[in-house]
């Protein structure tokens, strides 16, 4: 009887210890998850800001200005357009 109790006590202590470790593990992992979630949110924010920035740089007004003024581009007149007949694109 005493031996059995001793064994059970040993098992109990083991279980308790493993509970403590797994609990600790879980918390550590959770903190990590939390940190990653925060990063995700920060990246989302940054993505939105970059999108905004990109569309500001790609504004048609700006593109047209650069094309006309810096690159001296112009729309060709109808006489300078040669249409190559081929298969009609779908």
């Amino acid at each position, binding site marked *: 009887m005493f031996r059995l109790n001793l064994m059970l006590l040993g098992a109990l202590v083991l279980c308790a210890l493993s509970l403590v470790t797994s609990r600790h593990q879980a918390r550590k992992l959770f903190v990590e998850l939390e940190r990653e979630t925060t990063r995700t949110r920060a990246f989302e924010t940054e993505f*939105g800001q970059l999108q905004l920035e990109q*569309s500001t740089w790609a504004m048609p007004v700006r593109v047209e200005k650069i094309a006309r003024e810096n690159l001296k581009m112009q729309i060709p007149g109808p006489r300078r*357009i040669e249409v190559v007949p081929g298969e009609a694109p779908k």
Partner: protein
Amino acid sequence: MTGGSAALKRAAPAPALPRFRAPIVFGILLLLFLVLVGRSLYLQWIDNAFLQEQGSSRYSREIELPAHRGRIVDRAGEPLAISTPVKSIWAFPGQVDATPEKLAQLARVLETTPKALAKKLEDGNDFVFLAKQVPPEVAERVAVLKIKGVHDQNEYRRFYPVGEMASHIVGFTGDHDVGQEGIELTQQEWLGGKPGSRRVLINRRGEVVEDVESIRAPQPGRDLALSIDARLQYLAFRELKAAVEANRAKAGGLVIIDAQTGEILALANWPTYNPNARNRVAREKMRNRALTDVFEPGSTLKPFTIAAALESGAVRPDTVIQTAPGSLTIGPNTIHDAHPSGALTVEQVIQKSSNVGAAKIALSLPPSTMWQMLSDTGFGAAPNTGFPGEVAGRLRPAKTWKPIEQATMAYGHGISVNLVQLARAYTVFASEGQLKPATLFKAGSSVAGRPVLKAETALAVRHMLELAVQPGGTAPKAQVPSYRVAGKTGTAHKLEGRGYTNKYVSSFVGFAPASAPRLIVAVMIDEPSAGAHYGGEVAAPVFSTVMGSALRTLGTPPDAPGDNVILPDSAAAIREET
């Protein structure tokens, strides 16, 4: 003496304590102990809410989970409205405790003067915003100053990258990111996010260590794709603005519709406003005129009269109508042609835009036939694009029509429409007789329309509309190099009070390429006052530039390559009066 008495006392036997004293003290102590036990039991079992709360507040927190508003994007995914986090800086003036140097630093960070800042802090309010919606970096620099009593809070701010170009469609949001105008308003449910919250355990460093419960899951707003094409919107806006300014007009509108699906690819209005900085913008400028204002369309309505007559078999394209002497008297009223002609075929009535011819054709039809045609093509009913406050225009029931009204309606007077309705109605000619639903939202694939005309009628009218933009028609300036174009001008006197004035609304509606229509463009210029006022001179050139650039942008293959355009001599162009 004293020594003696002390000795005496010591010697004296201890006076007997009263026998009841010890039990009383013991009883009192026991009672106090019982009170303590009772109180602790009470706190433990009965009145435990307060302490529970206090306890949990030491280690558990409710965290707000932000949910941002969905983006509005164009059909290619280019953002038209986008929310990014910002911070607002606020303070309790009474609690602000800082040296003048610190305040000067704060003023510099917030890009204001120390004086203005001091004034804000002097105001008797409990709470002031020192700066609203500043970028997170600025808020960080404020936090570094560590001024007591100055705090920040998280907010979202809506940005509109295309600014004034699409402000009438997209609209804007007000405080707390709630839609106030345009699509932002009607699609609030779809776009708006609902912030959630959750309860967590934190450790002593303030890190979240465990999720306890999710009180409300956050629902981020959903993205919304409009039918708008940002590139075409830019073209439309640029050309409209130039035309309104060149003609010193009061206002203008331009709509581009996809001829196959009815999607609105661009919708520009002038005057406009910048949704990113809309302090003190007049309501007037916020109106989306193309959808919420009506005008009398004038001759742009003639093709529908002709279509009704062709459909009912009353005339054929080559039927000859006598329009001499250029006027027609109905009862006490007389209608005129600006440029009297003689006998014209039905085709030429459209080509030369003869009021008398159109009126005569209309009078050969029963009013109900004509009404049915106008009603079938969407006049008199709101176009249902998904925009708030769009108007239906006015199409009175056929029973109430007098002959003179039927005659004037043939060339677009006595009926009112909005620009989107007008552009959409032209889908019947661009699509072999089907009326497509106009929409501001991106459609999945080709949209089935409602059949209104026989294909042969639609094609016959399309041919007449092609004649109208060729030399000899009213709008040679609407031609587009390398493409076949079909369209109709309109020049309507404005109705003010009880009568018509000498102010005009010039318009042009057309589509191209005529062999396989891709786009419909409708232009309306309100009160041009720089000399020209005919639709063919004011609106047609805008149509030509926008249509040409738009077709090129979309990569539509030319259906008339080579130099097919005879540059119009403005004196030779045929003008019309309505």
